[in-house]
């Protein structure tokens, strides 16, 4: 992993301005910012690990733990809220037997909430990886999960 991180870092100068962009790239590539990545990025940008940690924990886009193979994001923007988004979230929590922010033990799904993805007209909206599901409701949560489930479930 260290080598792959260095590959990314090569594209950037040591200008601190690139900090968030670099974090985006690492997050995108590995699904999280690993303990290994932090000192490398800090060294490259000549900032302290402390400062880097402060920035990365400030923003919601970065995670310190790996995510599941599929990331389910339930939109809780205002438009989705008034149309029953919270009920949809609860159904995901029941079906996956985890709470928002957690990952299933078999690493298949990570459940997250998002504060509006700008598809308010078709709310409640659920985003699984890059697939948008509009007009989500409690009865179709099962179908949404099924569509993204691995064909051969890997048992934990």
């Amino acid at each position, binding site marked *: 992993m260290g080598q792959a991180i260095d590959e990314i870092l090569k594209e950037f100068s040591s200008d601190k301005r690139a900090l968030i962009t670099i974090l985006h790239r690492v997050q995108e590539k590995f699904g999280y910012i690993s303990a290994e990545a932090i000192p490398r990025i800090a060294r490259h940008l000549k900032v302290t690990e402390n400062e880097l940690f402060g920035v990365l924990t400030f923003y919601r886009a970065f995670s310190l733990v790996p995510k599941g193979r599929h990331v389910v994001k339930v939109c809780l923007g205002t438009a989705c809220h008034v149309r029953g988004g919270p009920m949809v979230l609860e159904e995901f929590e029941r079906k996956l037997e985890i709470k928002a922010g957690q990952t299933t033990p078999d690493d298949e799904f990570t459940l997250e909430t998002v504060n509006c993805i700008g598809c308010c007209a078709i709310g409640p909206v659920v985003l699984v990886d890059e697939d948008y599901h509009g007009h989500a409701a*409690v009865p179709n949560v099962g179908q949404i999960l099924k569509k993204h489930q691995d064909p051969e479930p890997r048992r934990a």
Partner: protein
Amino acid sequence: MKQYRSHLLVCAGTACVSCGSFKIKEALEKEVKKRNLQDEVLVIATGCNGFCERGPIVMVHPEGIFYQRLTLEDVPLLVEEHLIKGRPVKRLMYVPPAEKEPVPKMKDIEFFKHQRLIVLRNRGRIDPEKVEEYIAFDGYAAMAKALTKMTPKQIIAEISAAGLRGRGGAGFPTGKKWETCRLAKGTPKYLICNGDEGDPGAYMDRSVLEADPHAILEGMVIGAKAIGAAKGFIYIRNEYPLAVKRVEIAIRQAKATGLLGQDILGTGFDFEAEIVQGAGAFVSGEETSLMASIEGRRAYPRQRPPYPAEAGLWGRPTNINNVETWANVPLIISRGAAWFSSIGTETSKGTKIFSLVGKINNTGLVEVPMGITLRQIIFDIGGGIKNDKKFKAVQTGGPSGGCLPAEELDLAVDYEALSKAGSIMGSGGMIVMDEDNCMVDVARYFLNFTQEESCGKCVPCRVGTRQLKDILTRITEGRGEPADLEALLSLSDTVRKGSLCGLGQTAPNPVLTTLRYFRDEYEAHILEKKCPAGVCKALIAYSILPEKCIGCLLCLKNCPVGAISGEFKKVHVLDRAKCVKCGVCFDVCPAKVRAVAKLTGMDKDRAQGSGR
């Protein structure tokens, strides 16, 4: 350039894409080819059309026929009937609520009829990934005029005379902002386009970025000339990947055609634009936080003054405007201040885009002249409330705004009128609520939001929003006390006066407006332990009425937790201990039967007492 007799404009905004519009486009292209029409008919993907709820949408040009909610199966029929036989397909057209006959043409549909498109002029009309199409509709003509025929002072005078005000929410006069930055000492100077659209329920900026990215670039070059900036940043919210992609393409194409970069149009003027992606923090929409974020730091706001116009990015003079503001600029330059200021009210000129969402029939993005009434927006354009329910409130301005009741429906929308009513214009979210929405729950929702998004730098916001949220949560859980209302008011006052940035200063607005207009709902929660709208879970219970239940098994099959038992044609029974109050049984019970009752207050206690 090749001529086609028909253009099929497929909407490729995020909402339509999520309904499968790219697949529709592919299918249309295939079908057109199969019928050997590829030299006569062109299929184009456009930016967001606006009538998002009706996606996937296809407009047939030049007739202006509007097809909606298309499926892949509809494609062969559409091509055969409309394009070969010349018979528009009625079945695929839009039928207004409560009517039977479809409205074939887009311009005749109520949703579009009352709109006035300035910023969204190119929506659903051009392919946002082709600079040629933007140019074909007079794109970059205003920039050429500004670069060749106008001095910086003249540009600013024009923008000032037009009366353009910031569309991000605060409504600061744009010309004045530019002038301050132009006069500020220090180089280089920077421009920023604020596309960190964080208000939940608002997506106009995303739509403009996706549908007409060149309009933003053109506006920024004009602004750069006025201020004397050579570099601009377009800050785009992390949740908007399609907008990032479209702006990237636009920058690349504009540079390749000499419309951006070095020596623009051979005038010797240089301007570079760069995209910066946000990372998911609501507070970064605040201008000083946004600049901290561009510099690679935590998005912490700071004290103003100094204002960004004097000391912004890396301490240099920086002019920051919202996406919609930038998109207004080219038209003001090309058509003139007099034209622009003829639209709107005394103090608010031009148009405003609203995202009309929530419990409304025609959901989508609308651009209307300032001064239009809320009633016109909600009932004429929006087609009224879904399922013939009663209108309760409209929430404007996102977490910084407020909820306005039916009595305020005739309010003419502009910056001053909205703030007088206790809300704000904000970025333009307009969330319509009906009788089934609880206003205490809505206030709790927003305070939960601001409390989570508070950056924590100043105490009144960090602690105050938390306290407000805790009190509101208590009330929605039936643990409210009469003294809570006073506490909410005094806490709100502290948070408003003591917070450092706009996030905290406006955070109490949802509480204050709901208390002002819907105090009775708070009192019902506190005094009667009742949620009149039937939303707050702790205060409601569901029950199946044995005298009404026909035993159709619908609720039983749909209950996610198996709380309902019964057999076909026998009365069903709901087990309260298992019930999670998701409301599915209530929703699926046939309208003619209505055997599921939602109980609150005394009714709930009585039903529980009887063991039903």
